[in-house]
């Protein structure tokens, strides 16, 4: 229990929030890593997955990539890349390792979302004379939207959680508060850092869930999405 109250004391001490090693700076680094990673991963994964889902090919590929993605230890990728010449380019290893980690869930969820759209609805749309592009934009995409958003939320939360590992390879982010606490054998600081990351992950999950609901193209229609 002393660790919990110690962590509370740590978090309520103003000096811990300021400066280059303070919470605000680490939080900004963390959001920068996570945000860029998520944007790049979406740009890579979503067009590919939606297109594959539209033409209905590559299902095995999507599932296999997702399974293989779980087998790759992000920490190992991060450390490997840090030791290569890429490591001289600052944050590049972090971004590559995190993108590799984020692409599989995005790809799988978007693909499955597209494939789970009722085939009868797609056939009906085609029968009404819609072109492939129209079917994609007006039928498949709105119906696949909930699954695609689930994938983005899942990827976002996992990226935020995993970005802490950057600290173990000597990079920035909230994980540094944890690793610094370990090095100082300061358990309250370790717990405080952990609480901060967990809160950030939950906050982002909540914000994305809310945004997903507001932006839902099927919002307000009866019998929405399955």
């Amino acid at each position, binding site marked *: 229990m002393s660790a919990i109250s110690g962590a509370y004391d740590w978090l309520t001490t103003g000096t811990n929030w300021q400066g280059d090693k303070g919470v605000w700076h680490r939080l900004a680094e963390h959001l920068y890593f996570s945000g860029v990673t998520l944007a790049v991963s979406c740009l890579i994964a979503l067009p590919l997955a939606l297109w594959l889902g539209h033409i209905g090919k590559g299902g095995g590929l999507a599932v296999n990539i997702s399974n293989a993605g779980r087998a790759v230890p992000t920490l190992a990728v991060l450390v490997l890349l840090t030791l290569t010449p890429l490591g001289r380019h600052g944050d590049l290893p972090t971004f590559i390792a995190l993108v590799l980690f984020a692409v599989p869930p995005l790809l799988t969820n978007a693909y499955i979302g597209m494939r789970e759209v009722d085939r009868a609805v797609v056939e009906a749309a085609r029968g009404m004379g819609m072109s492939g592009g129209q079917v994609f934009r007006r039928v498949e995409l709105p119906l696949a939207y909930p699954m695609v958003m689930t994938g983005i939320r*899942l990827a976002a939360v996992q990226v935020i959680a995993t970005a802490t590992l950057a600290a173990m390879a000597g990079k920035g982010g909230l994980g540094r508060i944890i690793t610094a606490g370990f090095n100082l054998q300061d358990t309250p600081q370790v717990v405080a850092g952990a609480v901060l990351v967990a809160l950030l992950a939950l906050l982002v999950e909540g914000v994305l869930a809310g945004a997903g609901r507001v932006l839902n193209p099927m919002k307000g229609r009866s019998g929405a999405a399955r």
Partner: protein
Amino acid sequence: MSSPNCMVTNEWVCGEYLRTRRPELVDAVVQHVGITAASVVIGVLIAFPLALLARHRRAFAGPVLGLTTVLYTIPSLAMFSLLLPLFGLSASLVITGLVLYTLTILVRNFLAGLQAVPDEAREAARGMGYGPVRLLWEVELPLALPAMLAGVRIATVSTVALTTVGAIVDYGGLGTLIMDGLDSDFKAQVLTASVLCVLLAVGADLLLLGLQRWLTPWTRVASGTSRIRRRTDRSGSPDRPGGGSGDTGRREAKAAQAA
């Protein structure tokens, strides 16, 4: 043959390293396998009753699934840190953290597997005079086994990868070698440990796949059965939009079942 001084020139691939550091590598692999196996086994032992509970008492399902999902959003580094005051620097700290992560995947897949058992099969067994225990062991479990083992496979593979993070408390198996290699800029050690880690994950996955095929011989013969089961799964199980990772887990399970 690689030159004998590749450890001095710090090359990525180094036969000399493999020869001279074999005991160290074996120790790390043993620790890695031990931590992973203990985590998954304990996870299964906890997840199974939880899944049964969630199925029988609907009021439990929401909290159980919600709690295990929240656990999954806690970063691994933070998870080990949060447990630090309870366990100190020990292997049980790492195992406890990993068990909590496996629960998210396992509970969802176990529940999905049990719910996918066709009601007709259940009714038929009851009509034949099966009690609840015999129904569970002889009808429901065998039918749910492919989906459940698919969950165990996913949990095992991700646990092998996550174990490396245990390096923060020096119980990371191969992860500890990776971190030591980073600190001393020892490339051969980092690459060797990373490759071994991936090989372990692939090996464990194949082993479990073999186990699954051995335990469920009927799925290979009657492809018609699985088609029926998939159809009931689609209509019969509640889809949770807020499901997080479990959704993919269940869908992957479904896909693995179809494969």
